[in-house]
């Protein structure tokens, strides 16, 4: 009797498997809704090219939804489109556009709620309030999506990829632009963000809040309203990223606030108003980065402590380092500073005199911003020279005792 039972069990499985069919869907009224209803768990919906005006499609089964030639699912600026509430769903090759704006709910092109192992890949999400919205999910993959909108301001826009209370996400190869925040993380842990390009967003290219032990690497953040913000998090690893051209009166390449035990390595900060702005950080290791052509290379507020800046290149910044206090509890060592004019008599490639990277005018403008109008005047030059001879304003702890004579090859 036992083998028979086993056979039955096997057959049962075989039957379910054999019913894993491909359902072709053509544009018609509620055709995706209908297909999703009749489909069984494990089926594939193959959407044909065309325009589908459907909304609030809830996927509560394990389905694969594939588009052929980027079929368009249009939210008509009123509705949201996919709501995924099942594990292991795959959505690929779709163009989802014109999601509406909700005053109570956040409307998104694809919303994943309480699910695991969902994959969203190779989709186009255009002019949506929120692009992809992850809520309480685990191990989801967001890969190679193009997410574009034209949010005019911070208040009305939504985020490109929005993740709340998730773990183990993998967000790679996406291109996100024109949203409020490109990628938004809140209470997201142990996740991996790589090779994304986030540009022209109204606020931050990447926004971290209370998200610990995440890594982001090889991303490019360009021309965002306020750069990248990483706040109230610990154990964040940021390496090999590019922070380019984040310009504006409140714009930063990278804004760190209340960050502890994190690493910033091998990044490139180019043409930002401020390369890195640090506030209340503890034990952040800044190593082997390039700061080039920024207004301010790094701005370290007096509330930071225990951080170290080692082996970075500072080239062509208007101000290399600035601070608002007179105490400095962070260390600078073995960096290359293009403004360094010391000498190296013992030829060990390390300058024999310390370099003070804070200029007196940087300190003055830190205290009284409008004084910037006199920047680079003859007067400010004289003040810098006087300060060099008789240091009075610059915090004397802020110095690099081993400045490098030559640029590091990074």
């Amino acid at each position, binding site marked *: 009797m036992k083998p028979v039972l086993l056979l039955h069990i096997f057959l049962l499985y075989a039957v379910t498997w054999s019913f894993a069919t491909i359902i072709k869907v053509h544009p018609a009224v509620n055709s995706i809704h209908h297909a999703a209803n009749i489909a069984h768990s494990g089926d594939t919906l193959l959407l044909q090219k065309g325009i589908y005006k459907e909304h609030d499609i809830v996927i509560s089964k394990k389905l694969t939804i594939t588009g052929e030639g980027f079929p368009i699912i249009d939210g008509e600026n009123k509705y949201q489109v996919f709501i995924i509430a099942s594990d292991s769903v795959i959505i690929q090759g779709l163009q989802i556009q014109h999601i509406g704006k909700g005053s109570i709910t956040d409307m998104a092109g694809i919303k994943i709620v309480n699910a695991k192992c969902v994959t969203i890949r190779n989709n186009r999400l255009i002019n949506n309030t929120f692009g992809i919205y992850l809520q309480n999910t685990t191990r989801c993959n967001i890969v190679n999506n193009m997410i574009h909108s034209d949010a005019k301001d911070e208040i009305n826009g939504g985020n490109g990829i929005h993740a709340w209370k998730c773990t183990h996400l993998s967000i790679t190869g996406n291109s996100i632009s024109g949203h409020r925040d490109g990628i938004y993380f809140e209470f997201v842990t142990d996740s991996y963000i790589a090779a994304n390009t986030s540009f022209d967003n109204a606020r931050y290219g990447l926004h971290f809040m209370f998200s610990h032990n995440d890594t982001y690497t090889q991303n490019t953040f360009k021309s965002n309203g306020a750069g990248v913000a990483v706040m109230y998090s610990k154990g964040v690893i940021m390496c090999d990223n590019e922070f380019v051209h984040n310009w504006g*009166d409140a714009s930063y390449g990278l804004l760190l606030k209340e960050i502890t035990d994190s690493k910033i390595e091998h990044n490139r900060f180019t043409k930002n108003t401020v390369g890195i702005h640090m506030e209340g950080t503890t034990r952040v290791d800044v190593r082997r980065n390039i700061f080039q052509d920024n207004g*301010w290379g790094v701005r370290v507020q007096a509330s930071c402590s225990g951080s170290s800046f080692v082996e970075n290149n500072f080239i062509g910044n*208007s101000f290399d380092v600035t601070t608002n206090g007179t105490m400095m509890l962070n260390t600078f060592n073995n960096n290359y500073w293009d403004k360094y004019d010391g000498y190296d008599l013992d030829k060990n490639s390390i300058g024999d005199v310390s370099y003070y990277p804070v200029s007196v005018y940087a300190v003055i403008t830190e*205290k009284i*911003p*409008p004084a*910037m*109008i006199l*920047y680079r005047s*003859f007067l400010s030059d004289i003040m810098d020279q006087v300060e060099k001879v008789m240091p009075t304003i610059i915090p004397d702890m802020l110095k690099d005792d081993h400045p490098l004579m030559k640029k590091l090859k990074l």
Partner: protein
Amino acid sequence: MKTIIKYVLLDLLKNKTILVYTFILAAITISVSGIGDNASKGLLSLLNITLLFVPIISILFSTIYFFNSVEFTELLLAQPIRRKTMLLAEYAGIAIALTIAYLVGVGVPICIFFYNLAAVILIISGLFLTLIFSALALLIFVLFKDKTKGIGAAIIIALFFILLFDGLLLSFIYSFSDYPIEKPLLGLISLNPVDLARILVLLQLDAAVMMGYSGALFKKFMGSATGSIYTVICMLCWTIIPLITAAGIFKKKDI
């Protein structure tokens, strides 16, 4: 008028001071441009040189030239020429000579080494400073009878615009730092052509730093088309008003 300009120019282009001025400018420009691997750093040094040398040399040289040619001026005024024509022609001659010196000394090397918008704006600013400070020299010439006093006044005026004005401005900023003074500052800065020139060029070079904080307001205004036009108009006023005033005073002056 053209005749006088032509001959003043002929005389000045052989003038040793002008030649030395051109040569020094060229030497500095070339040496600054040659060293240093980044272009904006070189341009910044050139900006500093322009802001320092051009006003001083323009005003001093012009003042001395005007006072030295006072007898020649007298001779020309004994000819059937209007006083205004005579004075403006002499100004034009000297302004053109200094302009040529600046263009040859700074303009040409800059164009060869950099050639970007910032460089062009630097050249334009330098030209304006030349015109403005030689116009101020003309004003000094008609106001003072004595050459020594005139030269003293020229030095004081140059120092005032290069250094003192900024010092006063800084103390103003210090004492009113609790108030929103960005807009008044924009107004005050129009009172100093050297500052105008500096900000105009900085907006192209150090734009990142000008973007920060209240720099944003300056950038927003000065960096816009309206701002640029405003700046140029201010500079033009700085040229024209001293000229008109000088011509007015000169009309009634005993020579």
